[in-house]
């Protein structure tokens, strides 16, 4: 199986400041890859390199010929002076038929929003509309940059469930960046732990127990993540009543 996108020794520097150095990775059709890493670790720069918005200082980014990428940006500020209905937004930059727009909105769980003004949407609705727009090109690779920022926990959990469903329906690969490790990792095939370079990568369980990952997140984020990781790596001999759905995978 040829990969959709291949980064080879990608190095990106902003004004003498090296953000990414020697990042090599590739994404196969249909897999969900999550990039985790602390603030300033170059996660967004990595995604921007993949979509072509960031020129590498060294190294190469190779896309499969004719690769269709659906991109969901981190945040999208729409100036209140710009009148824009959801339906019109979907036709940017290329016009799509009403049927196609309705189908994408349905897939993204935003079926009833077509006539609304973008500026009147709630955070969750806005994210679903962005997802619908990314689905219009029938993407082979869906890219999400911290797509659930500003959503509450149930909201983002629902959003990631939707992503998984979309992946099942369309068979597209997903590359995403997230802070919400506990939600995202369970849904990922592969996790890449980034901190300027690739610290470690592999299946979620593997990364969660890797010393590099612990070094990054164990001390950096205090209690919350350490506690969470503890949940993942709980020993099987003590007496827990609550449900551990991860056990099946272990």
């Amino acid at each position, binding site marked *: 199986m040829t990969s959709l996108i291949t980064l080879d020794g990608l190095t990106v520097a902003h004004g003498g400041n090296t953000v990414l150095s020697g990042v090599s990775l590739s994404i196969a059709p249909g897999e969900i890859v999550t990039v985790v890493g602390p603030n300033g670790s170059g996660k967004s720069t990595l995604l921007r390199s993949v979509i*072509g918005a960031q020129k590498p200082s060294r190294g190469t980014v190779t896309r499969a010929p004719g690769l269709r990428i659906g991109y969901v940006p981190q945040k999208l500020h729409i100036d209140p002076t710009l009148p824009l209905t959801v339906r019109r937004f979907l036709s940017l930059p290329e*016009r799509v038929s009403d049927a196609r727009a309705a189908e994408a909105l349905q897939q993204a769980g935003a079926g009833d929003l077509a006539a609304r003004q973008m500026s009147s949407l709630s955070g969750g609705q806005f994210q679903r509309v962005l997802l619908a727009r990314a689905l219009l090109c029938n993407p082979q690779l869906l890219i999400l940059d911290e797509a659930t920022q500003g959503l509450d926990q149930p909201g983002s959990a629902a959003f990631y469930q939707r992503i998984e469903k979309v992946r099942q329906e369309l068979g597209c690969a997903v590359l995403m960046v997230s802070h919400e490790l506990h939600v995202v990792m369970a849904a990922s095939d592969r996790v890449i732990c980034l901190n300027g370079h690739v610290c470690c990568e592999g299946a979620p369980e593997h990364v969660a127990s890797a010393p590099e990952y612990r070094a990054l997140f164990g001390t950096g984020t205090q209690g919350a993540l350490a506690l969470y990781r503890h949940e993942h790596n709980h020993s099987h001999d003590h007496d827990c009543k609550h449900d551990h759905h991860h056990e099946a995978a272990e």
Partner: protein
Amino acid sequence: MTLLDDFLIRAALAGIGVALAAAPLGCFVVWRRMAYFGDATAHASILGVALALSFDVSVFAGVLATALAMATTVSALAGRGYAMDTLLGVLAHSSLAFGLVAVSFLQGVRIDLMAYLFGDILAVGRADLAVIWGGAVLVLALLWWRWSALLTATLNPDLAHAAGIDPRREQMVLTIALALVVAVAIKVVGVLLIAAMLLIPAAAARPFAATPERMAAIAALLGMLAAVGGLQLAFALDTPAGPSIVCLAAALFAASSLAGLLLQRRRG
């Protein structure tokens, strides 16, 4: 054409031409918060007038060249130490000052500075009319051609990249269109009021528009209304034409803001 012999008809046609080109471009200026950018480009054009007169080239060419140079300088310097508004303030006012000083050096030519600062729409000749409409059509064609890409780049540069659009190229398209509008409008409203023709009709159109296209269309209608009505006002009250056009546009903006508030309240 005997119709064009009447200076008032020529003036009205000139005003309509400028309003048609300025309105859709003005929408982008509003959406992208480039108001000061438009202002700076316009102010710089007085330097273009002085250069054109001293090198004996057409004022249109001189203004177009300076406006383009100004706009590209600003784009190139942006994000290199100074905030955009500081940079624009420095460049706009210094080029206006240099332009005014340069004009005073011109010997042998006595130019009516007021005509360039506030426009001289009643003195529009057939040749001016051809330049104005030529420029307006060019601007409209440019915007029509790039419309979707411009809108996408305005929404979000990364979104544009992902769709294979280079936002910097679209910025350049807007810059060129802006320089053209400034060069074309200098005769009609003058350098000090060009930004008003860009901004006010677009801002006045906002409360009544649900899509970007409708906002541009309504802005064009309001702009034309202001141009024609302002001329009649100027004729009836014996006031300067360019400022009268802007005054009427401002009144339309006030009325539309009020109507917008009422509309909002009725919708709840």
